């Protein structure tokens, strides 16, 4: 067995130090070392997106990255989406639109969708589908997921306009 390495990273806004084996993926590290089991394993080959997390703002399949590579990085998982118990607009829209059935794919979709809306607050349906094509869902046929993301985008925009008007 190889020696463990000490890694320091920012995870969901907190600086954390942890030990992990060089062969452990970031997904395994998050789930088994840090007990953040919100990120899911569907394939371990980068094909399903259930393990998606943000690394320095970019969506990454955490099964394809090593835990030791998290050194110095800023990582956001599904557990970091709600702030002080207040759900992110995407989380609310997923609930309102019934955009989940079993929910195993949901954490990955939320992260990929957040990354899209951070970059492009006004996506078309096609842009949403394109951005989410790396996330597999077998339950919903994607219909309600795409609608939830489009609705969340509209909501974020109108909030932004509301804020601008108040200023």
């Amino acid at each position, binding site marked *: 067995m190889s020696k463990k390495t000490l890694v320091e990273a920012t995870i969901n806004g907190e600086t954390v130090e942890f030990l992990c084996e060089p062969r452990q993926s970031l997904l395994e590290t998050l*789930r088994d070392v840090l007990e953040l*089991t919100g990120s899911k394993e*569907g394939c371990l080959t980068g094909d399903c997106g259930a393990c998606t997390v943000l690394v320095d703002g970019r969506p990454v399949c955490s099964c394809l990255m090593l835990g030791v590579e998290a050194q110095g990085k800023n990582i956001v998982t*599904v557990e970091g989406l709600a702030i002080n118990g207040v*759900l992110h607009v995407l989380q609310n829209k997923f609930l*309102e639109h019934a955009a989940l059935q079993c929910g195993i794919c949901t954490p990955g979709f939320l992260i990929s969708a957040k990354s899209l809306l951070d970059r492009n607050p006004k996506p078309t349906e096609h842009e949403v589908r394109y951005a989410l094509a790396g996330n597999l869902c077998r339950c919903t046929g*994607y219909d309600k997921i*795409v609608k939830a993301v489009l609705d969340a985008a509209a909501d974020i925009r109108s909030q932004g306009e509301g804020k601008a008007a108040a200023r």
Partner: protein
Amino acid sequence: MAESTTTRDFKVIGTRPIRPDGVDKVTGRAKFGADYAFPGMLHGKVLRSPHAHAIIKSIKIDKALKLPGVKAIVTSKDLPAAENKLEQSGEMTVNPMHLSMNILAHDKVLYDGHAIAAVAATSPHIAEEALRLIEVEYEVLPPVMTVDAATKPGAPILLKDLRNNEEGDKPTNVAQHYQFKRGDIAAGFKAADYVIEREFNTAMVHQGYIEPHNAVGIYNSDGQATIYCSTQGAFDVRSLSAQVLGMPVGKIKVVPAEIGGGFGGKTTIYLEPLSVLLSKKTGAPVKLVMSRSEVLRASGPTPGSKIKVKMGATKDGKLVAAEIWMAYQAGAFPGSPVAAGALCIIAPYTIENFLIDAYDVVVNRPKTAAYRAPGTTQAAFASETVIDELAEKCGIDPIDFRIKNGVKEGAPQVLGPPFKRIGFIQTCEAIKNSEHYKSKLTGKFRGRGVASGFWFNAGMQSSATVNIHTDGTASVVTGSPDIGGSRASMAMITAEVLGLPVTDVRPITADTDSIGHTDVTAGSRVTFATGMAVYEAAKDAERQLIERAAKVWEKKPDEVEFRGGMLHAKGNGVPPMSIKQLAPRFARTGGPITGRASVNARGVGPGFATTVVDVEVDPDTGKVQLLRCTVAQDAGKAIHPSYVEGQMQGGTAQGIGWALNEEYFYDDNGTLRNSGFLDYRIPTCLDLPMIETIIVEEANPGHPLGVRGVGEVSIVPPVAAVANAIYRAVGVRMTQTPMSPPKLLKAILKHRGATQHSAAAD
């Protein structure tokens, strides 16, 4: 049974509240099977056969056992002998010996991926290293991969004890022959003006749930075991594991975790008994999780099939005869859903003369399991394509053709007894009247196809408890794992009966010690049968509330009424009382209120769906793009319409994947060559359009709320609908799945050659 109440005024049913388990699922808090961890827990891995068919000559585990961190290894020697007999378990028949042989191969491996041994170690990586140190000596046998290969004279025999109902004491790969018939098919075909006969072949496909199988087993020194796992049926895991392990059912508790999709594939056991065996050997909790490749190689896909359909119709479009031969790949052990397929293949239509022969055939592939309307999608691909062709020959619109021949209340089912109230024609009419069907489809290489489907739906046993809390809110406890949002429906039914806001009802899926026996979540039965138990349990609570209010008011129970969530004393001017007001008095009037019910649900209402799709075919590559899709389905009564739509959309998407991309691809050695999501390609959101839904509500007279199952039938029409649309787009009739680019392109080129050839000859 109470009369159907679809037209009744509901307060909660039919609305779209936020699901009660939703927040846990969007925050990452929901605990799926693989999320469980216990102090001192070990990790298990399974050694699997690289051969499709081989005799195991020896297994040597000593080197592996010496690897530091390895705590135990089990092989089939650790399993007790199991009986070779057939037993009913939920909706399946189970042969305990075959089940045991599938959990760990006994003397033979029967498919690529067949489990041979399991290791427990201090980390999953060490367990995996240990697998490489286990030495297995095989005598490799020729693999038998298809129905044709398995049934030809002199074919290698998979199971030496297998006999069927016709061939006497002769070893065979044909496990069973079923036959269903009515009328006189020779006379039927004689009366036909048009007869179409075609052969269809469909590839084996997988349910493709995103969450791999998992189990954590804890065996205590007092002989009690607990299993945490993601399953569609905790009680089935308990009884099946008890059989394989030779343990009494009462010594095993199964705790159903959140489940990340099942679609029928999580109705049996794979890892569960291994986790208990390894825990027994090591004294520690042991967790096993399959990789995606293991899921594809060694869980239970749905059979590939070979189906021959011959059907005849008169000029004016009346179906008069059907002759059908169908054989399904059961996998390594008997038990494909071919009989279900045979009973569904022409179920939507009244045909006076038919003969259906159906064969269950073992092959060197994983033992198949249920997949959404098991056995029916393959069958409908064949029959609905031929029906489309007959409609065309008769010059009748395909929807009108279906309406003309479609079953209505009173029509005989394939087995004879008449249908009760059903909504097949209504689904056809809903599509006919839809904006989609009325819209014009223009453009080159574009086509529109329709198809319909039938599925029985299931009843079976369910239990429910409704507890009224001291503040007048309630919880509803059932034994049905929730795979599609059923907890929302259970809370809504309880809230409806008790006149509570749905947010005052907390629904729970309990473990096998905390609720009465409940059969597997399958057959679209949860909202129907468990919903029936919940309805009765809430009614039981209501009766008790009335008794208590009567006590408070010093009246007889029949002088008290429960209406709109309030208790009313008949007659005089006593002000009504809410459950909230009554709840603090439970203690003084006889203690807590718990409504209870257990049912073995009768009155199942079958499901029908009709689907229309528009496609565009790229004639140079054979790629099919879906442009538009609408599905109409009879729900009886939609409790939570969003989740009914979700079932319709999800089933349709799976059907489209089945039609266009998905297939098990084995090489000549019987090795699965696409055991990952990259090559076993399920639809992504770029492959699909929005899936429009029309919920038909033709109340099921057998349910107090009119409910029919909605979970399955939407998967049945899409394969045929896509094939029919492709025909209209490019003029080729596809008779195999998947209709993937290389296969479709080949068919297009052949067709082009043929038409050019005939044009040249003209």
